[in-house]
């Protein structure tokens, strides 16, 4: 059906808009005009196909599992086709293909529509579908321009009521049917007054439409069709407009489904790991080859590190193993420090501490981090035999990306005898460094795309779908608890209970010391506030307690462990008791 629709469409369009084509030839090259027509036809086919698909989907129940395997094929086909469109229209570069947006958008919509649950978005979408179908039928069946005008104005009314994004989609669907709107699209694009004049001469009737079209093209620029010539110029503005498009509408249309309905429980880290180990990684031969390529660079890295450069690795995939291999093969005979930037507790202070205490065997304390840095710098200046390799995994991690941390690390790395090799992963990581920091680091960039999973890097992360089971906290809590005196246990238990009682209170900042003392006294656990304080110090040393001064100057006590773990703990203790 589609196959024979296509030629029909083309033919019809040509017949219908002879005058327009003439104008097209006036203004654009014939070639381009032809391209436009071809595009139009293609796009139309896309829309048709989509429509058909959607219709069939609508007929199906909103089933959760997507039974029809063709879905994927269609996904693929759809993108490909849309990309072809994009290519013809834009002649884009491979990396930044901004204009492929409109049809993939539909792909996602399609995904949503396929996996739809009853909700408020459903009505919107179905309404839109109806509209879309209407407009498609317009394009295929319309006979006269006046007829079209009528429909157009109808649409215009609808625009006022439909949300922005839907409007945009409607534009897409009507585009193929309508030379005029498309035409003025490109017109408003370069603001060529001459063109507009000429066009205005064509017909008074079309004026109306044009205005609509123009308005639309201004508001929804991403679905416009731009001639290949202009594409380059427009990519930047496109990007900007895409930003506003993504952020302008306060309403975001996504389905309301939640994970709870999915009946899939949150996995904890361990089960996740177990599950993942069952799936075998694909393309292992290629991955190996890729890694071997990187490993050949090791000698070069050593050379360049010694010549005063520092090395930063970027690219998709965990670089931990690669660096580990580098460490094992090249650094066995030299002093080196490995720093896991992704470790949640890492600070610059701890890095400097491990350098001063473990590498330089210094047993003193420092007033501030800057003092410590100065000391290290002086030490390295004085003793020219000292050499130190720093390997930092994820230099761009949460904990290290701060300006001060980067400044200090940069100053460290600028020492001629400290060799830094680091990896970054975040897309905006280079923004951490201004010119002065960059010159401190003196980077040489190496792309090491490994495609290795970021297993360890993400294991600390409070991931969205992974349940923080807190097994670690629980076990350490139990250990500490067992070593306490009975009185101390009672004190701690009191605090836990109080905290659990106030679980739902969002403004709970902790138990004030006085109240706590009172409670402990009543339970015959302490006899003076001094003994209580002595106990609290013990808790604090084990990081089981945090004290905070409230606004009224009173000390508040808080256990920095989440309530789930605390409940578990209490249950367990009660069971054992």
């Amino acid at each position, binding site marked *: 059906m589609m196959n024979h629709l296509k030629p029909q469409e083309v033919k019809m369009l040509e017949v219908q808009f002879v005058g327009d084509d003439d104008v097209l030839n006036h203004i654009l090259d014939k070639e381009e005009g032809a391209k436009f027509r071809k595009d139009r036809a293609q796009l139309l086919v896309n829309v048709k196909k989509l429509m058909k698909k959607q219709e069939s989907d609508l007929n199906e129940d909103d089933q959760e599992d997507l039974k029809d395997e063709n879905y994927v094929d269609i996904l693929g086909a759809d993108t490909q086709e849309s990309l072809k469109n994009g290519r013809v229209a834009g002649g884009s570069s491979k990396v930044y293909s901004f204009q492929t947006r409109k049809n993939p958008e539909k792909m996602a919509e399609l995904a949503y529509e396929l996996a739809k649950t009853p909700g408020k978005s459903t009505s919107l979408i179905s309404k839109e579908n109806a509209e879309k179908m209407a407009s498609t039928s317009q394009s295929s069946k319309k006979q006269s321009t006046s007829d079209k005008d009528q429909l157009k104005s109808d649409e215009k009314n609808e625009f006022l009521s439909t949300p922005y994004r839907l409007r945009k989609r409607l534009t897409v669907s009507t585009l193929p049917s309508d030379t005029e709107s498309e035409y003025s699209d490109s017109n408003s694009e370069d603001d060529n007054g001459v063109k507009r004049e000429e066009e205005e001469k064509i017909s008074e009737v079309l004026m109306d439409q044009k205005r609509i079209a123009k308005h639309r093209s201004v508001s929804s620029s991403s679905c416009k069709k731009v001639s290949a010539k202009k594409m380059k110029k427009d990519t930047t503005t496109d990007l900007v407009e895409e930003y506003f498009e993504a952020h302008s509408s306060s309403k975001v249309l996504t389905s309301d489904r939640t994970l709870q309905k999915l009946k899939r429980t949150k996995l904890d880290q361990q089960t996740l790991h177990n599950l993942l180990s069952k799936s075998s990684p694909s393309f292992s031969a290629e991955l190996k080859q890729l890694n071997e390529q990187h490993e050949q660079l090791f000698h070069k890295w050593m050379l360049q590190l010694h010549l005063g450069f520092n090395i930063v690795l970027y690219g998709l995939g965990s670089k931990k193993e690669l660096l580990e291999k580098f*460490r094992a093969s090249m650094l066995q005979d030299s002093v080196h420090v490995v720093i896991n930037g992704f470790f949640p507790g890492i600070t610059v202070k701890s890095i400097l501490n491990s350098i001063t205490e473990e590498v330089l065997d210094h047993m003193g304390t420092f007033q501030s981090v800057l003092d410590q840095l100065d000391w290290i710098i002086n030490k390295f200046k004085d003793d020219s035999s000292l050499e130190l390799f720093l390997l930092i995994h994820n230099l761009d991690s949460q904990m290290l990306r701060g300006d001060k941390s980067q400044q200090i690390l940069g100053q460290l790395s600028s020492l001629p005898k400290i060799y830094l090799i680091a990896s970054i992963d975040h897309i905006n990581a280079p923004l951490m460094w201004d010119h002065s920091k960059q010159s401190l680091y003196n980077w040489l960039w190496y792309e090491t795309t490994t495609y290795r999973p970021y297993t360890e890097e993400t294991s600390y992360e409070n991931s969205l779908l992974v349940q923080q089971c807190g097994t670690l906290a629980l076990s350490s809590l139990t250990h500490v608890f067992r070593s306490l005196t009975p009185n101390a246990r009672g004190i701690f238990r009191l605090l836990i209970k109080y905290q659990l009682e106030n679980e739902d209170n969002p403004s709970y900042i902790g138990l004030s010391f006085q109240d706590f003392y009172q409670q402990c006294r009543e339970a015959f656990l302490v006899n003076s506030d001094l003994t209580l304080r002595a106990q609290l110090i013990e808790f604090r040393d084990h990081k089981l307690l945090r004290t905070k001064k409230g606004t009224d100057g009173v000390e508040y006590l808080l256990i920095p462990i989440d309530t789930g773990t605390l409940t578990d703990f209490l249950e367990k203790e009660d069971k054992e008791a």
Partner: protein
Amino acid sequence: MATSSVSKGCFVFKPDFKRKKVSFPLADYFNEGASLSEDSKLRFDTCQLLWQQMKSEAEELQEELNKNLFDNLIEFLGKSHLEFRKKSTNWNYQIKSREIPAAAIVLGVNVTDHDLIFKGLTEMLKDTVTPYVVSLQAKECPDVKHLLQKLASQLMGCCVDIESTEEENVQSSQRKMHYSMAFLSTWYRSITKKIDSESVNKKITSSSQWKESPPIVIILKDIESFSTKVLQDFIIISSQYLHELPIVLVFGIATSPIIIHRLLPQAVSSLCIELLQSLSCKEHLAKLLDKLLLTTRFPFKLNEKALQILTNIFLYHDFSVQNFIKGLQLAILEHFYSQPLSILCCDLPEAKRRIYSLSEDQCESIRRLPSFMRYVEKQTPEKQVASLTNERFLKEETLRFLEELHIYHENFFLVLRCFHAFMSSLPKYPLGRQIRELYCACLEKNIWESQEYEPVLQLLRMLAKDELIAILQKCVEVFKSCPGKQLGSTAEKLQEFLAQFQSLEESNEEENGSGSQQKGFQKTDLYHLQKSLLEMKELRSSNKKQTKFEVRRDRVVDLVDNLVRKYLSPPDTQTLYEVVYFTGAHMLREHLNAAPRIALHTALNNPYHYLKNQALKSEDDSIPNVAPDICIAYKLHLECSRLINLVDWSEAFATVVTAAEEMDPNSTASEEIKEIIHARFIRAVSELELLGFIKPTKQKTDHVARLTWGGC
């Protein structure tokens, strides 16, 4: 792994003490640990030697350029606090002494180079003017207290250095003291007294004018980043103490001098500002290129693309000469690392010696050089055989080529400079204003075949006499400055022309005088005027063979044209140019100006680019469903706008993946597989989160927010 732990982020590894002694020579890393150790060592040494020479040359240049600035500054210091030194008590001085002398040095936006200048400045001041030089940075001084503390500790540090009698503990006790200007002024009084009494054994050999009361120079390196309040307070406070402390401020300015007024709207009245300008970084670069690349002193050269990349990084990214030098260092390193024949990239006598000790492999690699092959093809069969089989013959040939290359360079740079002298006088600079642009154009292709060349010659034929004379003088100077005798005849010719033009001057004026007098001042109407103008035009075209000047001018232009065609051919026409020209431009771009985001995007969007598996190949930007999980998740997420529903995403992901594995999604046995797929999805999502594409949001349950927009 030894480096993963749930309780620790830093791991220190120390080798056994015995093994620590064994240190690898750096050169071992040079040739990837391969067997050609002798060769690679030599190459590495050559590389290091060359780099050291170039580096010291660059440093010398920097010093030279700074000298002017420093001299001005010292002069300014000399003028300031004259009264203070005379211990004058007159009334006028008392009033005036509220003004702090301040030197504002405009350094330009290349902030990273400033440190070097300030370092030089501090050293120079310490050597010649005063031991009390303090340099402060904005980030050390969030408030006045810290500023004073830093100031005092650095000042005390200075004097401790000099006397070296005070113990460490004195310093540490001072650290805890509360500093104030009053404290500083008592300190200064005591210190100057001390110096007065024992000025004999003072270390500094300063001129007598500084001896009695050396000024305290406070350098504020980056005035733009200081907060207004801190500066304002500090200036007001110190202006109160000016009769006790001879303070001089030095501001480093990256933007424009107006910033002082903007930062210090009130306190500026208590400053007595002298503006000093450093050399602009572009001129610095031009000088640097002149010294390092446009010379035969250093054998190493960059090809057009590499030079273009380095200058582009300079012009469009940082304006930092230091970074340019770093790029050059990398280029040298890469050249010696990757080109085995770079062993011959040294000065000529040394190269001669090395040629005769070339090994067979090296000879073979000479034969394989494209430029050498090109040469061989043009030879007679006997010679071809000889150069391909006879090692001795090859070595002689190589030597000859290297000598030729050297001569080529000598001529090239001479002619280039002359040509640039001509070019820089033309309107609109069709071939570029800077010599580096001209150089790039010449490196790229035959410059006389470029589009701009013809118009340039035409423009040259229209030069006025005085301009031409000036240019010729410049050219003659260029030739004189070069000791080489290669273009001796050309130099003579140029001089001859110059003399001719100068002798023409008088006679020409007479001609002109007689020519213009015929035209009287008659009143004409427009028609007549036009007519007469037309006549004049015809007249002029008919007796084209006009003045002697024009004839000679044409001859000069012809000479230039000939020179250009003869000597400015691009280097890749020379045999064995590969030995000295660095061609890995892409290496420089990759390592200096990398685009991590594009790499990520490519890896996610087009895995085939990295994993050469046919299954991953796709014609368009679309992605096959067997691609790595993260790529699929990424592709799906691109379709969403600001928020993404995790459930939908997970299901879309599951469908794609199940399709890829060609499983029957209906089968009940696949529950475990479903779990695995879900786990894979979780992993992909958390990886995307790590990469910064999404973040958790609380706007809606089970949604994540996209952090990028559009299709990237």
